[in-house]
Every structure is written in structure tokens, then in C-alpha cells.
């Protein structure tokens, strides 16, 4: 027990969390320095750690492995820490202790989860990411953010509960809590799969992303976009690599959010849908499960965190300056915010996978792997999705915010620290695209792969440029759907409308039934209506103050029950 402290201290996750504790106590003017120093220190520590298992501690008879450094976990931890550094820079101007603390705890929990060598440690950090991240939503301090935050929290915690139950059942079946390949052969494996699926935003489990991310603070959205979903992707890669079902799920995931993204008006929500679609690429890669495909998933996650972060940063800067992020109200901002516009375009080019940008060198690995393994439907889906990405993230986001018709906003350029963060991220996006060798070097598997063949470059350019041409044609001919205010139904309709409606239906019919009974039998029925509030509200039957007589009757009943049982 004594040396666990030593082992645990060596964890980059704990460096971030201790840093968060420091920020909670330090005066305001020191926050900036710490926000940058802590992730950098954690990153340095990560790369000092030798490959292998560390930080074994015993807890309640389980041997936990709190620190597993191997190719797969290291690349994820690395990009998380880089992301933490960049978002720290982006949020430097924010004067809100809560946001800084929760951002660091959140990042620390995500890093800890990625480095977890067993399911219990994973569960602990898994829940920690949920709890830490909700503060970034609440920090918007609007009533809507409060409601959305609670909804988000409940969904995240359900994922954690499933993970825990799955872990227990898995342990019961196999006697092991190691977090290695799990597969879908056991019920425990299924439960954990669903738990991962919730956080990875599988189709129909996805809506919390679009619900919650756009409600967070300006910097909170950027931070949220980095960790939770990619942590789930890592967990899938670790536990379910090569699971056929993932190819189908991933293919659906790449396609269906596109339609929503095309007609969505809130640009941060557009990006949230596009996030979903990008996750689909990674899920397909994991489903294929060959070394090349897994490398592709890892590399794509790496690149994705950067360009998606960059896009959210630029939209955040627009929201910060203009006060709205609705496509229907924006336009012409390139005049006021030229740097932000330029960085946004770099992000768009990267996500659309133009050659020389980061998306190209990573996404093509997944497509190549799909082709090599002859998953032609999935491959076509990814191809179609690539064209779709060009529309919603490549064209729609920069076009409607910075170009299109001038909406008349005359604002200042984004704050310097935001520009620096965006600049650094943009530089990384281009750097990876131009010179991918360092990224390839830290991928989990040794695979020879070269993205810059003439075939690849030409085919990709053909695909993208003709899609762009299609945009021009559609837009000029007036067929392109205009940006209008409104919200679009998604799967959250199920629990925000359908379930309550069913509930109301049941309640109403019960109430009607009650009315009939009441008419006949007086006050016999008391079970209808807002059952819970009736029962547990402050003056509800179960929770209000009873008279001592009623209390004692209950006690007598209890005594009688015991005596009867014993009789």
C-alpha cells in the first residue's frame, strides 16, 4: 500500500488532477501559467514512462493496474494532453475558476481512463469524466444549460452504471478484470459494449452530443469535443477490435448525421453532428480490426481532435464576439475576423481531407483498409460520407459564417490567446498533412503506409472538387436549402416527447379510470396523476409529515408482520 502512492503519483492523470487542485487555490493571475504548464508537464512525464504495466495497487482483493503504457494508450494519452494544452491556451482569458478546474479534472480523468489497465480503474475514471465535464455545461449559467446538463449527466452516468454491471458480470464469468479484448461473446461483454456505445454516440444513442455540446460555454464546447467520445473510441479499439457489428454501426454513423448537419441552423450543432460522422470513420476502422485499420482509427482520432477542436474554436470565437452562432443570422465576418476565418478554413480543409491537410493522411488509411478487406458497402458509405463532410464542415460552416451575404456585424478580431490557440492547432493540422512521418511513428502497429501516391491524391481531389462543383451548381440554381431558424427532431424526441407523451397517456387514462371509480366508490383510488410527485413531493403521500397515529399504525403493521412470519 505504501508504494502505491509512488506509482500513482507517476500517472499523468494525477498530474492534471493535482494541477486542478492547485488552480482551485491559486490566485487568478497564476491560472494562465498553470493551464499551460500542467499539460506540458504531464506530457513530458508520459513520454518518460517506459512501456509496460505500472501502478499496480490492491484494492478490496482486486489487483488494479492504474497505468498501462503501450502503443495504443500512449497515442491517445498524447493527443489528449496536447488537446488539454491547446484548450488551456484557448481558455486563457476566461475568468472562471470552475471552468479551469473542471477542464483539467476532465482531461485528467480521460487520460487516466485511457491509461487504465483494468476495468475497475476504467470505470472510476469513466465516471469521473462524466462528473467533471458537466460543469463545463452548467458554467454557461443559463437555465437551459442547467436542464441540458442534468440530461447529459444522467446519460453519462447510465453509461457508467452499464460499465460497472458489465464489469461485475464479466468478472463473474471470467475471473478477470483486465481490460483487454472483450468481445461480444458474453452478456458482460454486451453490457460494456453498450456502455462504450453510449459514450461513442452510436446511432440512436448519439443525441446527447448534439443536445449538450452546443449549450456549453465557448471554451467548454471545445474541451467537451475532445475527450468523452474519443475515450469511447479508444475503449472500443481496446476491447472490441475486429467486431464485425462495428463496421455496420460505423457506416450508419458516418451517413445519417450528415442529413441533420445539412439542415441544422446552429453551427455548433452542425459541428456536433459532424463529430458524430467522423466518429463513424473510426468505428469502421475498429470494426475492420486489421493493424492498418486500427492504425487508421488511432491516427484519425489524433487528427480529428485537432481539426474538430480548431473548428469548434473558430465557431466559439464567433459566438464570443457576435453573440450568436445561427447560420441564418451570420455572414460576411471575414472582414472583421480575417484570422479566425483563415483558421476555420484550415480546419475545414483538414476535416474534408484535402491533400496536404491532416484529415487526408489519416482518413485514407481507414478507406484503404476497408478496400483491402473488401467491405465494399462500408467503403461506399465512407466515400459518400466524405462528400457529405465537405458539405457540412467543409463548406457550410465557413461559408455561412464568414462569407455568404454580409449580415452587418462589425466586431473585433478574436482575443489574442484564442488566435494563438487556433494558430497552433492549424499549424499542427497542416504539419501532419505535409509531414505525417512523426505521427505514423507513434501509431500502435508497425505498418508501412504512404498516403501520397498519385492515385490517392488525384482520386481524392476528384471526389472533393466535384462535390464542391455540385455545391456551386446547387447554390447558384437555388436548390441548396436556405438557412432558416428552427430545430430539427432527432432521437431525443423519443425521450423528450414520446416517453412523456406515453406517460401522460397512461396518466390520463389512469386518471380517467380514477374519475370513474371515484364517481362510484368515493375516494378509493389515489394512484394516478403525477405519481412520483404525488408520492414523494414535499407534501406527497410518502414524504409529508404524517400524524403519529399513522406512523404508529405502520409500526404496528411491521410488528404484526414479524410476529406472523415467526409464527
Amino acid at each position, binding site marked *: 500500500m505504501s508504494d502505491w502512492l509512488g506509482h500513482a503519483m507517476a500517472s499523468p492523470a494525477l498530474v492534471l488532477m493535482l494541477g486542478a487542485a492547485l488552480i482551485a487555490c491559486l490566485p487568478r493571475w497564476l491560472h494562465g501559467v498553470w493551464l499551460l504548464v500542467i499539460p506540458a508537464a504531464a506530457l513530458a512525464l508520459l513520454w518518460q514512462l517506459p512501456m509496460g504495466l505500472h501502478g499496480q495497487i490492491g484494492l478490496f482483493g482486486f489487483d488494479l493496474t492504474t497505468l498501462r503504457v503501450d502503443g495504443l494508450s500512449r497515442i491517445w494519452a498524447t493527443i489528449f494532453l496536447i488537446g488539454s494544452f491547446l484548450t488551456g491556451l484557448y481558455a486563457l482569458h476566461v475568468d472562471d475558476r470552475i471552468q479551469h478546474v473542471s477542464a483539467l479534472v476532465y482531461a485528467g480523468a480521460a487520460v487516466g481512463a485511457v491509461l487504465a489497465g483494468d476495468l475497475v480503474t476504467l470505470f472510476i475514471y469513466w465516471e469521473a469524466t462524466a462528473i467533471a465535464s458537466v460543469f463545463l455545461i*452548467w458554467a454557461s449559467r443559463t437555465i437551459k444549460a442547467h436542464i441540458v446538463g442534468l440530461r447529459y449527466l444522467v446519460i453519462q452516468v447510465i453509461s457508467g452504471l452499464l460499465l460497472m454491471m458489465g464489469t461485475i458480470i464479466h468478472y463473474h464469468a471470467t475471473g478477470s478484470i483486465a481490460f483487454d479484448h472483450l468481445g461480444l461473446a458474453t452478456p458482460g461483454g454486451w453490457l460494456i459494449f453498450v456502455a462504450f456505445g453510449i459514450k461513442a454516440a452510436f446511432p440512436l444513442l448519439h443525441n446527447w452530443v448534439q443536445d449538450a455540446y452546443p449549450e456549453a460555454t465557448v471554451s467548454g464546447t471545445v474541451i467537451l469535443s475532445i475527450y468523452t467520445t474519443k475515450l469511447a473510441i479508444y475503449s472500443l479499439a481496446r476491447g472490441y477490435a475486429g467486431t464485425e457489428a462495428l463496421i455496420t454501426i460505423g457506416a450508419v454513423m458516418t451517413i445519417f448525421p450528415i442529413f441533420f448537419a445539412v439542415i441544422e441552423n446552429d453551427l455548433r450543432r452542425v459541428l456536433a453532428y459532424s463529430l458524430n460522422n467522423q466518429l463513424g470513420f473510426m468505428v469502421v476502422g475498429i470494426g475492420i480490426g486489421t493493424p492498418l485499420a486500427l492504425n487508421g482509427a488511432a491516427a484519425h482520432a489524433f487528427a480529428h481532435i485537432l481539426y474538430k477542436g480548431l473548428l469548434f474554436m473558430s465557431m466559439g470565437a464567433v459566438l464570443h464576439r457576435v453573440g450568436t452562432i445561427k447560420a441564418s443570422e451570420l455572414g460576411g465576418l471575414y472582414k472583421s475576423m480575417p484570422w479566425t476565418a483563415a483558421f476555420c478554413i484550415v480546419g475545414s480543409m483538414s476535416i474534408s481531407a484535402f491533400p496536404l491537410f491532416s484529415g487526408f493522411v489519416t482518413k485514407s488509411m481507414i478507406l484503404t483498409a476497408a478496400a483491402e478487406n473488401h467491405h465494399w458497402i462500408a467503403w461506399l458509405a465512407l466515400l459518400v460520407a466524405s462528400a457529405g463532410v465537405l458539405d457540412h464542415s467543409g463548406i457550410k460552416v465557413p461559408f455561412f459564417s464568414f462569407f455568404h451575404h454580409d449580415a452587418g456585424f462589425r466586431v473585433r478580431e478574436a482575443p489574442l490567446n484564442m488566435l494563438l490557440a487556433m494558430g497552433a492547432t492549424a499549424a499542427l493540422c497542416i504539419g501532419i498533412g505535409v509531414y505525417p512521418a512523426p505521427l505514423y511513428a507513434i501509431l500502435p502497429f508497425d505498418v508501412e503506409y504512404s498516403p501520397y501516391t498519385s492515385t490517392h491524391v488525384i482520386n481524392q481531389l476528384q471526389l472533393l472538387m466535384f462535390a464542391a462543383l455540385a455545391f456551386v451548381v446547387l447554390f447558384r440554381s437555388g436548390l441548396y436549402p436556405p438557412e432558416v431558424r428552427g430545430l430539427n427532431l432527432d432521437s431525443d424526441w423519443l425521450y423528450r416527447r414520446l416517453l412523456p407523451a406515453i406517460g401522460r397517456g397512461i396518466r390520463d387514462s389512469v386518471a380517467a379510470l380514477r374519475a370513474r371509480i371515484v364517481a362510484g366508490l368515493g375516494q378509493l383510488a389515489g394512484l394516478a396523476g403525477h405519481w412520483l410527485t404525488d408520492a414523494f413531493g414535499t407534501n406527497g403521500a410518502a*414524504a409529508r409529515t404524517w400524524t403519529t397515529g399513522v406512523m404508529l399504525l405502520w409500526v404496528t403493521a411491521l410488528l404484526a408482520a414479524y*410476529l406472523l412470519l415467526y409464527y
Partner: protein
Amino acid sequence: MITAFFNQMPVLVVVVPLLAAPLCVLAHRAFAAWLIYCLASWLAFAMAFLLFVEAKIAGEVSYAVGNWAPPFGIELVIDTYSALVLLLVTGVAAVTGPYARKSIASEIAIEREYLVFALMLLCLAGLIGITVTGDAFNLFVFLEISSLSSYALIAMGPKRRALLSSFQYLIMGTVGGTFLLIGIGLIFMMTGTLNMADLADRLPEVYATRTVQAGLAFIVVGLSLKAALMPAHIWLPNAYTYAPSAISAFIAATATKVAVYALFRFVFTVFGVGYAFGTLPLGIVLLALAAVSMIAGSLASIFQTDVKRLLAWSSVAQMGYIVAGFALATPAGVSAGLVHLLNHGLIKGALFMAVGAMVWRVRASSINDLAGLGRAMPLTSAAFVIGGLSLIGVPATAGFISKWALMSALFDAQHYGVMALLLVASLLSIIYVGRVIEALYFRPLPDDVSHHKHGEAPLGMQVATWTLIAVNIVIGVHATPELEAAARAAASLVGGAP
């Protein structure tokens, strides 16, 4: 002299607060009474610690009151089980000392303050007595001492609703106490002894009689009432809500815990596991009641508008957790229940203290009244957050340790349904703790605040709250000593390797 002190310690730990109480009355001054309370409770805590160590070494410390040899005289017995609960009771009492000074002063008229401390000492003496005694009837007497003083303490609450709350508690508590008395009488009738160890020896001969069966039923129901186990819990929310803040913290952390201690002292030590859980179906009944408590308590908690009431309802739920552990009657289950009993005492004590500090400032305890206090009282709010996380069971806090232990015990016993309910209850606890945290940090201070002149809570309240929070974190990080001690206690209660 020193050896004499050590030899007399088991009785001194009761006698010191008992004698300090009239001293408080004689002192007649608030400050002097407070000083006496602090000294007595700290001394009791020190002795409790020494007794704990002694019990660890010797296994069991026995003391014959007045040199009357047991089983005829009253025997005091301290084993690890009682020593742990004793540590909790005296520890919380000792921490309440510094807390109570300002908190009590803000809620109770100055001329009655000294009486509060006298009553707190009496209550403490009663609670300590319950844990150390090895005599069934003596336990009843101490239980009534602690209950009577807590009725009076609760009635001192600042709102008039405190009066009826206290009266209802009095009726329910007295009925519970009388049931216990009947139960003890029935088993005394069959065995002719009141010494617990002696009872354990003699009861097996008369297990089959109706009298003993009825005796067990009366004792279990009587102590369930005192422990606020569903459906006998209804006195608790009001009593905790309307009591003065310091009293809420003290009683919430100790009184029901000690009642659970007594319940399982009877069930395990006196009646024996085989009889109560084997011959009679007590285990399954308690488990069912515990499961209902968990869910219903948490649900009710979510709907509360008053933070103290919210915490009180959460206590009902948490009592369910504790009883669920004990009701398994496996070494792992009992030790988990015991650990949660201790940890929950610490958590609830800390939370009630944090809320008490906020009440001290805004003079109200509804969630809306606490809006925006995260900025006005950063330290107190931070304490509430950490305590709340511990209540939820977030890793690195005490709550995690005991919930984890409970989960694994339930899992080993293959009670998957209860396990699922426990998980659901934890989910619900996130929601009700989240509601308060959201109000503290993400809502603005109301504009009409007349309480800007106060800053953070006074030092004494801060120190007390943070002491309990610190203990929570220490246990969360380094739980081995507590877990080992609990395992020893469980082994002595239900057998099995420690």
C-alpha cells in the same frame, strides 16, 4: 495512577460526559458550558481511541461495574465492533464542539445556551453507554437517556415546527424504546439473565419458544424505529430539518448509527446469526426493507426544496445501504455495512455542518436561499461539494470505499437485484446532490440579499467542517485500517476469517 486510569477507562468514557452535564448546568454561562463540553468530548474521544487500540490488541476489553462480577453485575464490553462505533460517536461529538459555539449562538437565545451543551453531553453519554455496555437492560436505559436529551435538543430549533417534530419523535421513540423493553423482558423471562454474553449462552436452549421469537420481533421493531428504517422512518426528516444546525449534524451522524449498532448487537451477538437469519427469516425481511428505503428515500430526497430535509431523506436512503450490508450476515456484508455506517456518519456530519454554516449566514435552508453562495462562501461550498461527492461515492472519498465494499458483498451473496437498486439509488443521489451544487455555483446571488455583511462562516465552524471532510478524504485514499478493523469486527460478529 496512570494504570488506574487505564483500568477504569471503559467506565470513565461514559462517566465523564455524564458528570460534565450537570457541571454545565451549574456553570450557567454559555461560554463556560461550551468549554466544559469541549473538554469532556475531547477527553472522551481520547479515551475512545485508547480503548480502540486496547480492543485491537486484546480482542475485547471487559469491565465489571462496581466490581460486581458478570453475569450478575453490569458488564461493560468493548470489542472492535463497539470500539469503532464509539470512535465515530466521540469523534463527531468532539468535532461538534468548535462548531457549536457560533452556530448555537445564532439560533438559540443566550440564556438557554448552556442547557444545550448540557443536553448534548447527556446525549453523548447515552450514545457512548449504548456502545460500551454488555448488559441488555443497561442498553435500554442508555438509549432512553440519549433519546430524551435529543427530543429536548430538537425542540430547541428556531422554527415552531421543531416542537411538533420533537413531539412526534418523542412518541415514536418512546414506543420504540418500550418495544425494546418488552423484548428484553421476554428474553429475560426465559433465561433469567440480562448479560449479553450470558444470554447468548442460554438462549439456544429456549430458541423454539414463542416467547423468544416474540422477543426478537419486539427488539427488532423497537430498534428499527430508533434507526429510522422504513416504514418507521417518518419521524426523521422533520426532526433533522427543524433541529438547530449543530444538533442536526451531531444527531444525524450518530443517533441512528448507534441504533443500528444496537440492533445488530442484539441480532448477532445475543440471538446469533443462525437463529435470527436461519431459523427465522429476518435477513430477507431486512434486505427488502433496506431496498425500499434506498429507493424511496432517494426519490423523496430529489423532490425536497429544503436542503436539510433533502439530506435527512438521503439519510433514510443511506440507512437502507447500511442495513442491506448487515442483513447479508456474511463477513463481507457485515463489514461493508459497518464501514458504511462509519463513513456515512462522517459524510452526513460534514454535509449537515456545511449546510449549517450556510444557514448561519442566510438564516434559511431552502435550495433557493442558497443560490450563489458558491462565490460568497467558497470554502463552505467547496466542503459541501466534497461531502456531496463522498455521498455519491466518487473515488478517493470515503463514500466510494463503503459503496464499493457493499457492492462486492452483495455481488458475492448473489443479490443482484439489490445491487441494481443500490446502483439506481446512487444515480439518484447524483441528481439530488447535483441540484444543490448547481444552486450554489451556477445561480446568481439574489439581489435582495441582506446578508452581505457576513462573510465566510466563523473559524470554528470551518475547522469542524473541514476536519470531517479531511477524514473523508483520508479514508478514501487510505482505507486499509478502517477496512481491516471492520473485517475484524465482522469476524467477531458472524464468524469467518478476519
